[in-house]
């Protein structure tokens, strides 16, 4: 993972392995199974921290869908 901290923006470049590792780390950080996290998210039962984790997981899924496997 390459992080470039410019004054106004942080750009992050991730490999597919980075994304998969980050995804697993986020699920572990939530303290819930992915299914439970998604179910609670759909019912708006997550606090802001957990909503943020679910949003990041969904973002990684979008990136994985748009990053061709080698």
């Amino acid at each position, binding site marked *: 993972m*390459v992080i470039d901290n*410019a004054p*106004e*923006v*942080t*750009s*992050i*470049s*991730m*490999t*597919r392995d*980075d*994304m998969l590792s980050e995804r697993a780390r986020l699920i572990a950080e939530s303290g819930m199974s992915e299914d439970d996290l998604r179910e609670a998210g759909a019912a*708006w*039962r*997550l*606090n*802001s*921290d957990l*909503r*943020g*984790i679910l*949003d*990041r997981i969904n*973002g990684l899924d*979008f*990136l*994985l*869908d*748009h*990053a*061709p*496997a*080698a």
Partner: protein
Amino acid sequence: MSRERATLAELAADFAVDLTRTVRAVVGPGCPPFIAVTPSTPGATGTVVRQDPASGITLMAGDQPVLTLTVNYRCVWDGHNAYLAVESSRIAVFPRDAVSTEPLMRYEYMKDMGDRLPSAHLQVHGDHPALSGVMAAAGTGTTRGRRRGEKASGGKQPRLSELHFPLGGHRFRPCLEDILAVLMEEFGVTPAGDRQEALDALADGREEWRRNQVGASVRDAPDVAVRVLRELGYVISHPAEVEPAGQVHRLRAL
């Protein structure tokens, strides 16, 4: 940086800078920047631009935190592989966690929403018994109406948040600057600095957004652009004998 040579990551970074500038106009210079996340994989076609932290930004009314704003964009190349195109976006406004974990409202855009629901839409969360009653009795003429009727028969009343209020389609949807300005006016959100400077900064961002959307609209309907420019006295010559095709489906889409 020439647009022809800009990479997806560079365009995403530019977009993140614009969003950071917009939000800092209200929240102040201490607001963390937006983050552009792009796969390093060759041939990647998508990028995510999101807030940091992803849990949202606190908006203040006076010295009291009142709202949490969450913003994310998922982007791809446009049809010409020249510009960033938003595939989906969500701008959501929540009360503080201690009040509720359900949003107050969500402004969303989904490029591929299908043809029955609006690609750009507003969903408002809350209770409206009269509206729920009307929705439950909306008949069986549509799939959504039928499903609502079935749920209501089972004792589950439709919710206001199930409605998707249209917001101008692919080109004329509101931008983040519009929503922040409304939060300032209607919810008393107080900018960290001078109020007029914040409104001016939001107007700058809104102008840039609308100029970009005008450009996209010209690609949708170049015949209209040519007609209007000729009415203004411009001399326009076509690049080929045929009229530019445009993208009529974008103009007709909900």
